[in-house]
């Protein structure tokens, strides 16, 4: 009998080497359309990774299928480009088998909310230690322009030539509905906000879900422009800050307050600052965060970004391995000969 041998799980005593963006950049030519929002997300992550103090060999990017899913090829880390929708499932198995790794899951709105919706909600429900980045461009890009589960009702696409009939998913609401322990939104026009958000996701113990509003300049150009363009951001993006009153606008003249239906946008001068909701990421009940997620008719009305919810709850993979260690501590390592004799036996 041999014991488990896995050269990769060895813990190195050497300090984590200093790295730069170039160290995190693979030798592969990036093949997204020129002008795609994915470039700025890639840059944000490649610039962030050296700051996180992590090892490249301990970092794995797992993706499904779609434009966003090409992401792992461009990171000089370990990576698997799997099949449509299944990245959270593959990543769950990897995270369970290898708690020593940092596992990132990258996918688009079709990949993670349509074909892979089941895997996403269950990974979030279980609270597997994954950093899930959902690039939401409200369209199918790689198949050339069909509506996605986040496309707005009425949207005219190749597969909805007279307008989309169904209502969209709100990814933040879906994640909160699955009681994800970390739920955030950022957008591809603001590198620093992306980096701050990704860093928070990385630091979170458990499943971290980040919706990245991302422009598809070929099939859905400018879909978020009315909220993310520099000159409208102050009025159209509501930057959630833990412990702060939720205010926005060039003069912070607008705020978010509770209403009988959830939360509403108010004129601070009218209601007074004391009625403005103070953002608390750590409320265990997801109802307030959910109300915030319902505030905006993205991308038409002022839209909250930042961390909606960040709570501590037991992480799945470490809890599973803890059960194994507990059993082994109680009864010792299993013995195969004993196992074969664990039912009644007789001698001939």
């Amino acid at each position, binding site marked *: *009998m*041999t014991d*488990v*041998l*896995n*050269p*990769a*799980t*060895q813990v190195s005593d050497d300090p984590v080497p200093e790295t730069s963006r170039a160290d995190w950049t*693979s*030798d*592969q030519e990036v093949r997204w359309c020129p002008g795609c929002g994915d470039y700025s997300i890639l840059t944000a992550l490649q610039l962030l990774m050296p700051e996180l103090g992590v*090892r490249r*060999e*301990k970092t794995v990017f*797992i993706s499904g299928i779609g434009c966003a899913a090409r992401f*792992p*090829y461009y*990171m000089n*880390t*370990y*990576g*698997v480009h*799997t*099949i*449509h929708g*299944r990245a959270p*499932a*593959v*990543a*769950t*198995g*990897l*995270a*369970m*088998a*290898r708690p020593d*790794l940092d596992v990132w899951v990258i996918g688009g709105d079709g990949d993670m909310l349509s074909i892979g919706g*089941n*895997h996403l909600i*269950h990974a979030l429900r279980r609270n597997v230690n994954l950093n899930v980045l959902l690039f939401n461009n409200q369209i199918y890009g790689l198949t050339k322009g069909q509506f996605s589960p986040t496309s707005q009702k009425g949207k005219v696409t190749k597969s909805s030539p007279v307008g989309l009939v169904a209502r969209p998913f709100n990814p933040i609401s879906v994640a909160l509905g699955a009681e994800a322990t970390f739920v955030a939104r950022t957008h591809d026009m603001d590198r620093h906000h992306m980096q701050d958000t990704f860093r928070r996701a990385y630091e979170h113990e458990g499943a971290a879900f980040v919706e990245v509003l991302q422009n598809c300049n070929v099939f859905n150009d400018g879909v978020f422009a009315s909220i993310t363009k520099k000159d409208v951001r102050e009025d159209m993006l509501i930057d959630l800050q833990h412990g702060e009153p939720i205010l926005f606008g060039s003069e912070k003249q607008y705020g978010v307050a509770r209403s009988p239906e959830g939360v509403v946008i108010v004129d601070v001068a009218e209601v007074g600052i004391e009625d403005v909701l103070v953002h608390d990421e750590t409320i265990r009940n997801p109802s307030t965060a959910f109300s915030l997620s319902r505030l905006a008719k993205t991308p038409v009305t002022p839209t909250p970004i930042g961390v909606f919810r960040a709570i501590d709850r037991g992480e799945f993979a470490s809890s599973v*391995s803890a059960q*194994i260690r507990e*059993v*082994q501590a109680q*009864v*010792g*390592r*299993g013995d*195969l*000969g004993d*196992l*074969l*004799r664990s*039912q*009644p*036996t*007789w*001698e*001939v």
Partner: protein
Amino acid sequence: MTEIAEAPSPPALDEVIIRFAGDSGDGMQLTGDRFTNASAMFGNDLATLPEYPAEIRAPAGTMAGVSAFQVHISDHDITTPGDAPDVLVAMNPAALKSDLHTLVPGGTLIVNKDTFEERNLTKAGYDHNPLDAEDLAGYRLIKVPMTSLTKEACAEFGVKPRDADRSKNFFALGLLSWMYSRPVEPTMDWIESKFAGKDLIISANRAAFNAGHAYGETAELGAQRVIVKAAPLAPGTYTNINGNTALSWGLVAASQLSGLPLYLGSYPITPATDILHELSKHKAFGVTTFQAEDEIASIGAAIGASYGGSLGVTTTSGPGLALKGEAMGLAVSLELPLIVVDIQRGGPSTGLPTKTEAADLMMAMYGRHGESPMPIVAARTPSDCFDMAIEAARIALVHQTPVMFLSDGYLANGSEPWRLPEVDDLPTIEVRYATEFNMVDEDGNGTFWPFLRGEDGNRPIALPGTPDLMHRIGGIEKEDGSGNVSYDPDNHEHMVHLRNDRIASIPVPEAELEEGSGDDADLLVVGWGSTWGAITGAVRRVRVAGGRVDHVHLTHLNPLPANLGDLLRSYQRVLVPELNLGQLVRILRAEYLVDAQSLSKVKGQPFTAGEIQFAITEALDGLAGITGQNEGGTA
């Protein structure tokens, strides 16, 4: 408690087939299982056939709710649960109506007389009481008031009559244990440990068992007590094992032999779920089990674990296998080790969840898009699932490929005595991972190419966490060598051939004729999977009668043994019994251009030896006819 006196040695029978039938709520599976275990401990050879409905509790007393357990015990080597029972125990009218046809003419019929009242008779569709009519004249009928005797026996322990009713299966077990001279201790011990802490239930079950035993001893049964003596099994330590347990233990063994932690991704599905149950118990062996949200997630997670350096396994049945197809293709493309276990059941669609069939061979061979070959192994008996699980792991790990393991409902739930292997004799499985650069880049720096193959044709696997060897792999076509995404036409053709040849060239054992073969036979019976027992039984009977027939049983279905073509061509006739419409026979005809004939059965039940015996005899008669014609032919 009544003292049970052992009678002086009763007359011996060489074998007996007993069928316990009752309502789903009557505990017939448990009764059969206990009788089987007592027989195993006694030293009989045995084979079992549990048969139960897909519904957990169909309406009580109806035909839909009948659950049965057939066990064949003998003093010699046997291979099947028997063609037709010698004894039928019917706990209610529905069980009698549903299973009477299985009983041999003149067989012993033991009924729980108490249940033959109007309500149950109506539910079973009887317009009269068959116990009072001439219906059962052809059988040796023993009417026992099991329910009332059980209640009576339990009363002294303060068990309520309604609760006592639940113990009546132990009365039946006690009675049959007396009739066939089964040892009492294993059942008593089992009751004690199974119901530990529930003293009232222990008392009730023991009282019911003893009452049944005593009834046999004292009542005028019209049935003599007999004994089926121990079979001359090879020396060693034995246990009674079913296929799913053997398979689970084989996977644990493979984990130990390879040094890789076992990771099971699974989704509950009959008849594979017991593997998930069993492996979930073995955390002491470092086994991780993951009950996923669906079939696809379960194989996806197993692939993720395999990528991380575990022995990744996913278990399912046909409907689940259909869902796993795309992910299996991913594992083929990634060239990662993985074991996919298919416990086959009747199909298509939901089909017959609790009944056996072996109609997934074509899906195992070809059920993925593109040219996506996977090695296939198939177990032949319940205990063989242990060895074949290790074999599947060996192929998966040594040849870096997903492997299909085919079992079926009959093997999964059927049991047999198993001589335990010596753990130290099990062969270790050597697994190697890349830890160093294997290429130099344009700038003269070391780099790692994940598809730059070694002499064995395997790509180097560098586990995530290995310093410096960061790389990307994916299901998209890749350039052989560098592993970079490639749409190059020649590269794709090269990769398709390469993936095909990698699997086709996996060495598998030569096809060997089964014991007793090789006496100039003109007919070869080719089997795979769970038909081994019935074919073996049939071939033995034909040989005893002077027929010349050989038997080869395939354990490896992809690739097939290298000598199989020559072997098939050396017989005038080839007969292929299968629990499908002839799937292996198509492969054999296509591969080897031999005129192999199919013997098909798709009733959700295994072949009986008699069915195959009949087909063999017909085939031999045909051959004799041809020979006769030739001899007497006109020139």
